[in-house]
């Protein structure tokens, strides 16, 4: 299958800041691709280049098979965009905004009307459709923007931090809708700085830091591949000497939290064996023994900080 997005050496320079630095990646048709990075990493700048809002200084992006610089109209016809800052016309009603979108995408009026009603209902905005967007809450605005982006049934959807700063209800509604859309075949490009969201939603995640891509993989693989340091939690039924514990083979550090010991190691197997022997030697029985799964958070932090040192 062809790639929905294919990016080669994309670069954007603002004055002396290199906001996006020769990045290359591709997004497969039908996947939810998460573009994850801390604030200022270059996510929005990348999204704006991919959606034809700003031109890159260097590099190319093919979106839905079209070069976004050479055939912008054809590429744009096929995708929808939920940008970082809400941008419906606040002097128009939700309905007028949607009819305008329909006309800008060349939809027949009857199609616009049907789609708009259906989507507004799905996102709980139908009763408020004739109200000016000015009066909308942040969450309602964001839901409307999503409806505007979906009106023409795009096969690819760009979302730039769609849930950042939203209430729980709007967030859940939006995430559920994205999952449904994806099941029906829509490719989704989602930027976020929320690891939990990327973890739950995305098939693959690209991590961007200071304009460069640090890693691209499935969230599960990123977690395990990156987590060289493991954490093991252990507790015994009686007091054991802490300094002896931290001198065991394979243990990097041992810290006490309540009645448990948090042990970090680069070799889980050796440490577990040592802990068992240690208990036997001190006449202490093991009450709990957990290996703690690495979180995407840890992987993310490591990836975005390690190389900066």
């Amino acid at each position, binding site marked *: 299958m062809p790639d929905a997005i294919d990016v080669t050496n994309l670069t954007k320079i603002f004055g002396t800041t290199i906001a996006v630095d020769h990045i290359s990646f591709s997004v497969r048709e039908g996947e939810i691709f998460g573009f994850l990075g801390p604030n200022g990493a270059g996510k929005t700048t990348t999204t*704006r280049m991919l*959606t*034809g*809002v*700003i*031109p890159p200084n260097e590099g190319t992006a093919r979106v839905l098979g079209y070069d976004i610089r050479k*055939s*912008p*109209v*054809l590429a*744009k*016809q096929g995708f929808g*965009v939920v*940008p970082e*800052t*809400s*941008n*419906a*016309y*606040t*002097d*128009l009603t939700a309905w*007028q905004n949607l009819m*305008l*979108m329909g*006309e*800008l*995408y*060349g939809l027949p009026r009857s199609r616009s009307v049907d789609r708009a009603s259906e989507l507004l209902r799905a996102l709980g905005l139908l009763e408020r459709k004739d109200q000016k967007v000015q009066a909308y809450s942040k969450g309602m605005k964001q839901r409307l923007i999503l409806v*505007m982006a979906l009106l023409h049934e795009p096969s690819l959807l760009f979302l730039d931090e769609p849930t950042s700063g939203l209430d729980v209800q709007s967030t859940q509604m939006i995430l559920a809708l994205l999952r449904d859309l994806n099941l029906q075949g829509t490719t989704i490009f989602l930027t976020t700085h929320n690891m939990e969201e990327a973890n739950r939603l995305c098939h693959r995640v690209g991590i961007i830091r200071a304009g460069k891509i640090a890693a691209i993989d499935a969230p599960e693989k990123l977690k395990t591949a990156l987590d060289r340091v493991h954490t093991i939690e252990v507790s015994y039924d009686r007091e054991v000497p802490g300094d002896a514990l931290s001198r065991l083979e394979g243990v990097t550090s041992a810290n006490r939290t309540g009645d448990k010991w948090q042990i970090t190691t680069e070799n889980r197997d050796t440490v577990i064996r040592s802990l068992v022997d240690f208990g036997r030697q001190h006449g202490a029985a093991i009450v709990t023994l957990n290996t703690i799964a690495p979180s995407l958070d840890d992987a993310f932090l490591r990836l975005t900080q390690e190389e900066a040192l």
Partner: protein
Amino acid sequence: MNPTAFSEQMRRAWAVAKKDIRIYYFKGPVLIFGIFMPVFLFLAFLMGSRQLPLAFLVSGLVGMALFFTATAVSPAIFPWEGQAKTLERLASCPITVEAIIFGDMIASTLFGIGITLITVLIGLGLGLSLLHAITLLGGIVLAACCFSAIGMLLAVPPTNVPSNIMMLSSLIKFPLVFISGIFIPLQQMPPWGLALAVCSPLTYFTDIVRYSFTGASYFPIPGDIAALGVFTALFTAGTMYLHKRTMPKRM
């Protein structure tokens, strides 16, 4: 449907124009400004120069009304939309920069024509007779296109501060009114004044209006129309070319 086809882009330009009219032109202050500003200028002018014939004054009023209304709002649309981030929305939609500009021009052309027809009615109400209605109507439509292109040219500097661009456009618009034979008949102008006047498209439009009310014009009417046509083509091409280059700087 081919989204890049000319007819399809024209339809999308019309969608932009309808949006502009809804949001920017049907606002109380804009309408009031559009109607009152030329009327007050005209009244001030009427008090100051009683010796000039009414037909001359009304022609000046019609000329000013069209010029000011067709250029009133369009320079500020991009800064407004840049601030509100709706320009980013348009930039990510399948519409060319040219079609967006054209849509903005259609809106200001229609607004200019509408307000100007009111001033023509005022002239008729004051007892003037309209000798060449078709010529006047054609002149108004052509000049409205020309002035709306000027309005968009004034919008070229890529700032997102509406007041800056309004200030700049006033600096250009007011002097243009003074060199266009609105306050002083072309016949009474010194040669250097006339040399300036021929550079202003407003001169030719005012000449057409005078001809429509009095039957006499300074230039031959086909010449006026040709001059307006050339200015319109030049300004339209220029504004599209320049906006295409500056649009990314607004984002």
